[in-house]
Structure formats: C-alpha cells, structure tokens
C-alpha cells in the first residue's frame, strides 16, 4: 500500500467512527452527572447484591477511567463496600454499554456482545477475589 492509499484508508476509518464517537460523548455528558449524583443512593449494603449493582452501575457509566477511581473513592467514603466499589470501577472501564454501537461497527456484533458479557462477569469475580485476597493478606 502506498503512502496516499494508506492515508486515505486510515482517514476513512476514523471518519466512520467520528459521528458515533460524538454521539456517545453527547449521551454520556447528558446522563453522566445524573449517574454520578445518585450512585451512593443505589447501594443497599447487601454483600451479595452490592457487587452486582456496582458492576451494573459501572457498565452503564462512562467517562475517562480516572473519573471512575475518583467516584469510587467518594463511594467508599460514603460507606459503600470495597467489593461493590471495585466491581463498579472495573465495570466502568471494561464494560462499555455506551460504547457498544461503536464496538459493534468496528469489531462485530458477536465479538462485542460476548466480550462485554465476559467483562461484566469478570468485574464481579475480580472484585470478590481482590477484596478476598486483600483481607487474607491483612489477616496474615
């Protein structure tokens, strides 16, 4: 592929993604403040459901990953359990419900759905394992 062809192909690839990228950012900026404001009210204190709620909340939230740690830190200070916050933080950056249309366009529907479902389950599993390991280390 020569230089001109390579540039045109790369430009076309970005150009296809740009409208979805802008659309997603617009949606996120419309819903984001609402989700961040109400996150702490949604957790119940139940050790079984909280990680699930955390993963669900994280999946539909979107923003730069650094924001997830700040929101997660705030949730911790409001008394939300570490396992729920860990699931929330991890799902925020690994599961992209808002990103799904763009992932489908670029990488295929089955790939995107399969990957996001696995990431959702992993967010809960890793949260439980991380907090479990941390407790074990503290205990020893």
């Amino acid at each position, binding site marked *: 592929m020569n230089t001109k062809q390579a540039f045109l192909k790369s430009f076309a690839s970005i150009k296809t993604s740009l409208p979805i990228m802008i*659309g997603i950012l617009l949606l996120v900026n419309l819903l984001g403040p609402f989700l961040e404001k109400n996150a702490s009210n949604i957790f119940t204190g139940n050790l079984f459901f909280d990680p699930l709620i955390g993963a669900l909340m994280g999946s539909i939230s979107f923003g730069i990953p650094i924001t997830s740690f700040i929101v997660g830190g705030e949730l911790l200070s409001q008394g939300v359990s*570490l396992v729920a916050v860990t699931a929330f933080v991890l799902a925020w950056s690994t599961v*992209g419900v808002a990103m799904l249309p*763009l992932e489908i366009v*670029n990488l295929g529907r*089955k790939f995107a759905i*399969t990957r996001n479902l696995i990431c959702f389950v992993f967010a809960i599993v890793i949260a439980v394992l991380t907090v479990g390991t941390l407790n074990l280390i503290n205990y020893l």
Partner: protein
Amino acid sequence: MISFRMMKNSYKFLLVVLIIYCVVGLFNFSLACAGVQNTGVVLIKIFPTILLILFITFLVNRYLEVDKIVKYLGKDSGKKGLFYSIISGILISGPPYILFPLLKDLKKKGMKKSLIAVFLYNRNVKIPFLPLIIYYFGPTFTVIFSGYIVLFSILNGFLVEYFLRKRNV
C-alpha cells in the same frame, strides 16, 4: 435531501442523539447546554489523541505487512502474541472509541480476536493512574487489583475465542 433510510448507521445514531438533546433541551435547556459544552471540551481534549491514532493507523497500513501481523498477533503467534497484546494494552493510552478503528484494521490484517480482547482488557492497568489508585485504595489493593486484571485478561481472550468459535464466527 438525504432520507433517513439512506444515511449511514453512524450518522443515524448521531441524529437520534441530537433529537434526544432537542427534546431534553425543551424541558431543561441548561442541562442540554451543559452536555453540549462538556462534549466540546472532551472533543478538544482528545483531538491530539485522535491525530495520534490516525498517525498510528497510517503507519500500520503503510508499513505493517499482513504477514508480520499474522506472525506476531495472528493465530500462530502463541505466547509471544499474548505478551505483545498485554504490553501494548498497558502502554497504549486512549479511550476505546479511538482505539476501535485501529483494532478493526489490525483484525482485517489477521490479528486474533482473543488478542484484541486481551489488549482491550489490559487498558485498565494504566501506569499514569497508579498514584491515584494508591491514594484512594492503598498500595496493596493496587498491586492485587492490577495483577488480577492482567491474569483475567488472558482468560478473557481465551473465553472470547472459545465462544466465538463455538458460534462459528
């Protein structure tokens, strides 16, 4: 005039979002305005990254031959392919919506789907964010958390490949 049916899906999506904004704006104008303003700020912030990704995509298209991609990230890449995906996932920064077009090109050139999943999962181990995670969650948590992410990224890649193969994708 272009009809809605003839529009590309990506433009249809943007149009639907703009309609949602108009409806929200009718009831809460300041919320819609803030949304547009924040989107503008983010777009300006990520513009250099978009240019960088455009440049990387250009380099991939111009210089990376299909046989090289297949060798390092293709179905016979083995442990080396896994290693490259983990390292590049950790080191390459940028939001997923910017990286998807690049991965699409790499996939077309022969990158394994499992390695795309591994790459995307390892984006969560971000070296510049480590001080912030340590600040909020402590150093022990950060080490354990990051370790599990790398470990589960491999399992993630394996499972994605397994389920897609099962469905003959």
